[in-house]
């Protein structure tokens, strides 16, 4: 029971983190048609900048400064690069962000080295939030959850209560309509791209010290966030939210349980002396490919995604 | 009596809660030239999109040459002998003019997805494509990329690509859209030439074109057909005149 609850909390924390990344990605993708390969790079930059700024000013200022810096960078990337690539179509835009992600990874290695940096949870947030029997839930995980939920609320208010939010919502389902609304579309694009980058960076700030801050973190996170967007359904923030939680919780449970088909058979009283390798794999071993298996299943049985508003 | 080339029964289409096509019944006998006219927003293009299966119908039934095709995919309907053109030019911009037409003839000639035939050795496909180019007046532009043709040339190619496959039911969506008077006259002559002996259904705004070309006309207003008849009958129909709000059809 305690295992179940703690694992669930861990899973939700991870899922919310995924949503901080996938919300920005899905907004950018649905509105501008750009699959932003560099999205996870912004996440990584957030973590590294927080480490750097935090070393000078402490964690709390870094929590604010790092996302703002990365957000400005994201806006600049949209203005100076993506828009230029746009002349040559979506493939060029995508390849531009692909090249950018490559460059960012190299830059990070250049500045901070190839090994992980010592980015730590601040002392004020170190320790246990509560203890259930013998298992404790770290205070910092609780903090991550609080930040994610605050961001979720902020995003919800921004999208439902502001004029720009109205344009964004309209463009999710009918991208071609936005032009007709007579809004300054390029500026909205820059804003969305920059905000998406800032959100990704915020995720990096709060996750970099809970997990690990290293040059490979973007390449590890990127594909999973793409999967979240496909599983959730294009153009659907709700779908991205659902898929984030689903994948977060499912993967956390799989990592935490060392169980295989063979074990199941044993428990049912069946002896399996030489089971095939596939049956011997434990859930933990399967955890890394679970998101992709889920994606394939969704593609076959529900091509629009869980809550997709449109096919393309 | 043989089955009509095209038959629509109680066809409806809604986008979200908005009904666009509100129960259309239509029969086009084989060999007829049929025009669909109506004010802007009446649903003419939507009707075409339903017949060619670009959009699924909400309800109703569509028959092609006596065979139900409701719910089929566009390529299946094409293989049963219906081909359409588009109001906004819809060609293959990075292929040559010749290859645009050749692509249209490869499937019906049975070469399909073959990767064991050499294209340039397929004399029948080449001759058929060259004949079409000759007839649409683009033989001299054979090796030009279709994307750099002039507008009128692209429209001609659009018609060429549509009829090249030999489909016997042809749907043309505003073949003269955006053309000058003289260009339009040429386009009408082209349509007449290219659809000889076929069933033609066309959407058109230009009344001159419609009354000169069509055997029968249907008037679509707010998703319903309010009248069908010969050009003379349509001219004389008071409901039609009212629908066009004084913009008298009789003057055309």
């Amino acid at each position: 029971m305690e295992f179940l609850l703690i694992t669930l909390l861990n899973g939700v924390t991870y899922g919310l983190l995924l949503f901080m990344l996938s919300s920005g990605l899905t907004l950018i993708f649905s509105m501008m048609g750009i699959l932003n390969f560099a999205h996870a790079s912004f996440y990584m930059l957030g973590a590294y900048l927080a480490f750097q700024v935090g070393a000078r000013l402490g964690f709390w200022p870094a929590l604010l400064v790092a996302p703002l810096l990365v957000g400005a960078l994201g806006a600049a990337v949209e203005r100076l690069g993506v828009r230029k690539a746009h002349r040559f179509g979506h493939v060029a835009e995508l390849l531009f962000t692909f090249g950018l992600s490559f460059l960012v990874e190299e830059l990070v290695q250049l500045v901070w080295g190839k090994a992980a940096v010592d980015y730590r949870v601040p002392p004020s947030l170190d320790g246990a939030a509560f203890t259930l029997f013998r298992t404790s839930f770290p205070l910092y995980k609780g903090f991550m959850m609080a930040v994610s939920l605050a961001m979720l609320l902020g995003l919800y208010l921004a999208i439902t209560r502001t004029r720009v939010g109205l344009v964004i919502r309209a463009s999710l389902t009918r991208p071609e309509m936005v032009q007709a609304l007579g809004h300054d579309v390029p500026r909205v694009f820059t804003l969305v791209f920059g905000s998406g980058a800032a959100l990704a960076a915020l995720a990096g700030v709060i996750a970099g010290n809970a997990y690990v801050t290293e040059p490979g973190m973007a390449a590890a996170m990127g594909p999973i966030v793409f999967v979240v967007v496909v599983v959730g359904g294009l153009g659907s923030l709700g779908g991205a939210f659902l898929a984030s939680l689903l994948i977060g919780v499912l993967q956390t449970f799989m990592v935490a349980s060392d169980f295989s088909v063979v074990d199941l058979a044993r428990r049912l009283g069946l002896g399996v002396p030489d089971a095939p390798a596939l049956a011997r794999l434990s859930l933990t071993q399967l955890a890394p490919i679970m998101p992709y298996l889920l994606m394939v299943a969704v593609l076959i049985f529900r091509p629009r995604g869980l809550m997709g508003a449109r096919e393309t | 009596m043989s089955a009509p080339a095209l038959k629509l029964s109680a066809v409806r289409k809604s986008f979200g809660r908005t009904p666009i096509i509100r129960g259309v019944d239509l029969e086009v006998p084989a060999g007829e030239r049929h025009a669909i006219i109506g004010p802007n927003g009446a649903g003419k293009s939507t009707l075409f999109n339903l017949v060619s299966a670009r959009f699924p119908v909400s309800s109703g039934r569509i028959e092609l040459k006596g065979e139900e095709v409701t719910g089929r995919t566009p390529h299946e309907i094409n293989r049963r002998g219906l081909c359409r053109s588009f109001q906004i030019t819809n060609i293959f911009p990075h292929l040559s003019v010749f290859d645009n037409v050749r692509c249209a003839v490869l499937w019906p000639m049975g070469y399909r997805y073959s990767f064991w035939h050499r294209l340039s050795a397929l004399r029948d496909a080449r001759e058929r494509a060259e004949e079409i180019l000759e007839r649409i007046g683009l033989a001299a532009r054979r090796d030009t990329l279709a994307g750099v043709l002039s507008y009128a040339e692209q429209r001609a190619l659009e018609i060429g690509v549509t009829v090249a496959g030999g489909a016997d039911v042809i749907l043309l969506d505003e073949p003269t859209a955006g053309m000058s008077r003289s260009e339009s006259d040429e386009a009408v002559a082209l349509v007449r030439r290219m659809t000889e002996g076929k069933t033609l259904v066309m959407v058109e705004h230009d009344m001159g074109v419609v009354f000169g070309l069509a055997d029968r006309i249907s008037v679509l207003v707010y998703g319903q057909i309010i009248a069908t008849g010969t050009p003379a009958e349509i001219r004389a129909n008071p409901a039609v005149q009212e629908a066009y709000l004084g913009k008298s059809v009789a003057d055309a």
Partner: protein
Amino acid sequence: MSGVPPVLNRRRLLGFGGFLLVIAAAPLVVSHGYALSLFCQIGVMTVFALSYNMLLGQTGLLSFGHAVYFGMGALGTIHALNAVSAGARWFPVTLLPLAGGAAGLLLGLVLGAVTVRRAGTTFAMISLGIGEMVAASSLMFPAVFGGEGGVSGNRVTGQGWFGVTYGPQLQVYYLIAGWAFVATVAMYALTQTPLGRVANAVRDNPERAQFLGYNPQRVRFLMVALGGFFAGIAGGLSALNYEIVTAEALSAHTSGAVLLMAYVGGAGTFYGPILGAAIITVMQVVVAGITKAWPFYFGLFFLVIVLYAPGGVAGVLQLHLRARRAGMLRRLAPAYLAGAGPVALLVGGTVTLVELAYAVVNRVEEGTARLRLPGLVLDSRTAPPWIGAAAAVLVGALLLRVVWKRISGRWAEIHAALAAEGRS
């Protein structure tokens, strides 16, 4: 109107004859062992990049997971090789890449069915996910994938025929070159078939293709499967070349590399990916030997291509060939000459800046704070080199802006002249 044109016209004879001559003569001109292994790698990558372009250039499918076919082909070949070595089966080593092709084709048939529902950005995303899935599963089945260490084999089995044992690297080179030539001809031939042309049509306008009776999903599926076949052959060649296959072969990194080759070389032409494979392989080997910063230069080079030459190297080449045919290449010369200075400043300044930065970082590890250039030693701890390099970049960029106007003006004239000619 009548008569079938011959298979070998003058252009093809020149193109493929030249290609054959180059690959046959390359090891005779430069026979250094280092160069030979470089040529082998270029041969493998040529086939791989061409197979990638069957998707990107010909069918309009941007894949981020093409390495899975390459990796599967390599694995299929190495396992087949080991079965042959163990005497379990008899099969000539020369034809073993076919085993790789079969593995790639099989995987293409399976994965193609799931991935081709949609094209464009969605396909890109899905291909990435599928690629990650296959790469991640490779560590789960060590019996097939060899785990961390990979699967190794020995291409020398038995006595060989007429002294061909594939022991010496030169023999392996001719094996790869022979396969590369055959595969290239086969892939070119494919572009000249109904399927090849309809794939172009689906790339240009899938909707219209559908209204002409073609099923775009079926066309994409066939192209993915056939592309998998040729990628598998490339993988097989790489397995025979290195005699080892690791998880790297089917990783996202390899998928990215082949995308770079095809795009930088030029996806819009058939021969572009061949150029790309050669250029990037040489860069990887040669530039990496000179500077540690090569991935950075590589990224910059790629971004410049994406933003300023989306047709790749072949696209730029094609443009100049057209200008030359129109006899207008000479008009460009003065503008290009004027551009040479600013470009040199910009490139030189950028390189110096990057190298200085790398020197600063590596100082801690290796004690090399100084940047040694021929006849010049720059100390990264002092300000002047930094200021000088930054100034060079700035001045170069500003000057280039001015010259660029002149160059694009000339091109506008040439385009206008060419268009007028095409119309008459």
